């Protein structure tokens, strides 16, 4: 299955005694490319083939990719004015600092540009997501604890100093026509 380190060392020892500067080995199971450079050898190594899955997916519990399409935003007069807060990097979206804690913000809350509105967990690091612009939270586009790709819209803001009374919860869902 895997070419061992000892195998590669042995091959390098053989190559070292020759004038060859490059070796390219390709089988169904692996690709190995060794190159002599002025500083020493480099190695490119790929394990090929597919994983031999033992059984059908045990629990087909699908992830809650609750990312709703924002493509129809333009159909709504108000939606055109909304400001998207996007994921600065891929990660898992959380609305609260910890489970059970109140969310950072909720629909109708007023935020400043530097208000933390959510966190994205990427590689075990909790990254605060800031509003980026002052306004009022209009809607969330991603469900709590759901993964988000980089650039995905996380939530929508109504820019400006509008008070909570201007936008009621549920009044402006992104899924609505």
């Amino acid at each position, binding site marked *: *299955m*895997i070419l*061992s*380190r000892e195998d*590669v*060392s042995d091959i*390098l020892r053989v190559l070292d005694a020759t004038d060859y500067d490059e070796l390219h080995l390709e089988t169904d199971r692996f690709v190995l490319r*060794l190159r002599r*450079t002025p*500083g*020493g*050898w*480099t*190695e*490119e*190594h*790929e*394990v*090929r*083939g*597919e*994983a*031999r*899955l*033992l*059984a059908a*997916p*045990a*629990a087909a*519990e*699908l*992830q809650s990719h609750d990312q709703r399409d924002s493509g129809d935003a333009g159909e709504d007069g108000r939606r055109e004015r909304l400001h998207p807060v996007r994921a600065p*990097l*891929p*990660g*898992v979206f*959380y609305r609260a600092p*910890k*489970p059970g804690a109140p969310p950072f913000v909720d629909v109708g809350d007023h935020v400043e540009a530097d208000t933390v509105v959510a966190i994205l*967990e*990427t*590689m*075990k*690091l*909790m*990254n*605060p997501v800031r509003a980026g612009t002052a306004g009022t939270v209009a809607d969330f586009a991603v469900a709590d*604890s759901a*993964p988000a790709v980089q650039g995905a819209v996380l939530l929508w803001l109504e820019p400006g100093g509008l008070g909570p009374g201007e936008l009621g919860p549920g009044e402006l869902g992104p899924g609505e026509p």
Partner: protein
Amino acid sequence: MRIRRILVANRGEIALRILRTCERLGIEAVLAASDADLDSPAARAADRVVRLGPAPPERSYLSVDAVVRAALTSGATAVHPGYGFLAENPALADACADTGLLFVGPAAAHLRALGDKLEARAAAVAAGLPVLPGGEVGNPAEAEAMLERTGLPVLVKAVGGGGGRGMRLVCHASELAGALELSMAEAGGAFGNSRVYLERYVARGRHVEVQLLADGERVLHLGERDCSVQRRYQKLLEEAPAPELPERLRSAMHEAARRLGRHLGYRSLGTVEFLVDVDRETFSFLEVNPRIQVEHPVTEATTGLDLVAEQLYVAEGRPLTLRQEDVHLSGHAVECRINAEDPDRGFAPGPGTVTGIRLPAGEGVRVDAAVQNGSAVPPYYDSLVAKLVVWGSDRATALGRLAGALDRFTVEGIPTTIPLHRRLVAHPELRRGAVDTGWLGRVLAAAGTAGTGGTAGTGGTAGTGGTAGAASPDRRGASWAAGVTTHG
């Protein structure tokens, strides 16, 4: 009981590392992979792959039920947990015992005792190891009284924690009550255990740890590792042996670690972490890491042993065939952790796709990589993508070889810490010899690349890994922008 088929319940470089040894020993390896890892090099290399669950770790690598089910359905008789995730979680060890699976690690009782930092500290004291002055405090009055023993500054630490979380440096008595309250709240939220203790702060400390291998009766040390190059309690570069360590201290630490292992009746691989006080020339017990560690290859390079193989033998119930006098330490080894982080952008994590990777090869050079050309680096897990380990007959040779190897190491598509390692290895202070745990923070601050809140070092030290195992939907495994942690 001989292991014929094993479940490797981990991912990335350590999964591949364990697979290699299994292959060599003729053990059939089944990899438990999350949906994000079904196409990883480890999944392709494994004899069989069983789907563990969705990508988020709490539903796959951190789920005791999923791991046990995967082992049972695949017909494995043993589970290797690697490091991080469930490696130090006694619940997995218990569940394995209940279902007749062999857990490759220490007894659940040892995981429990060592996961509680005060219990571990008490065991160290009972075994005659030096600890820093301090102890548990439950309220500001007790903390105030404890200052008589610790002096100032003092560190507030979480009993259930590690990796720097819940840890706070207090320089003035007036800050103590507030710091205590914050640490208790933070520890309660992060570890489900709000107990805290105080320990004397060491101004200039080195993180030196001793590798143990034990079969329940015989306890061997395999030399020490110096892991003082840290950023926010995260190790970045490790070496063996520890440079410029007085021989008196070195041998005393080896013997202290063995004494603790014997006192516990420890069985498996384990690491005893010490903090060396540079100014006082003393050492103190910090904690025990009851698992294989990220930096184990530097010990393999200086001992010539395969630590995973030794760990498997002991798990099978075989007595050690090695005696202490059979362990020969030779030369010098250094490891660089290659993380998918951008050192020039405050170490921002950089998941993505590897579009090209070229590794250094040659005498004395080893790379344990988690990725290959085309591999995805998912955002769900920690950022370690490879470890570069070099060996040389002495430290200067090893560092020279390391500099050359780093120059030949290229990764495209994701940011990595390779450029930072190139700068560190060329740094005259590192070249000269030992550095303390604050060194990297000072170097980064001077270069203006520390990132948001980059801390200069403290007397604390990295490498508690127990906390990763405690991660759950409440995000115990993750940390706030004040520092990442998982395993050491």
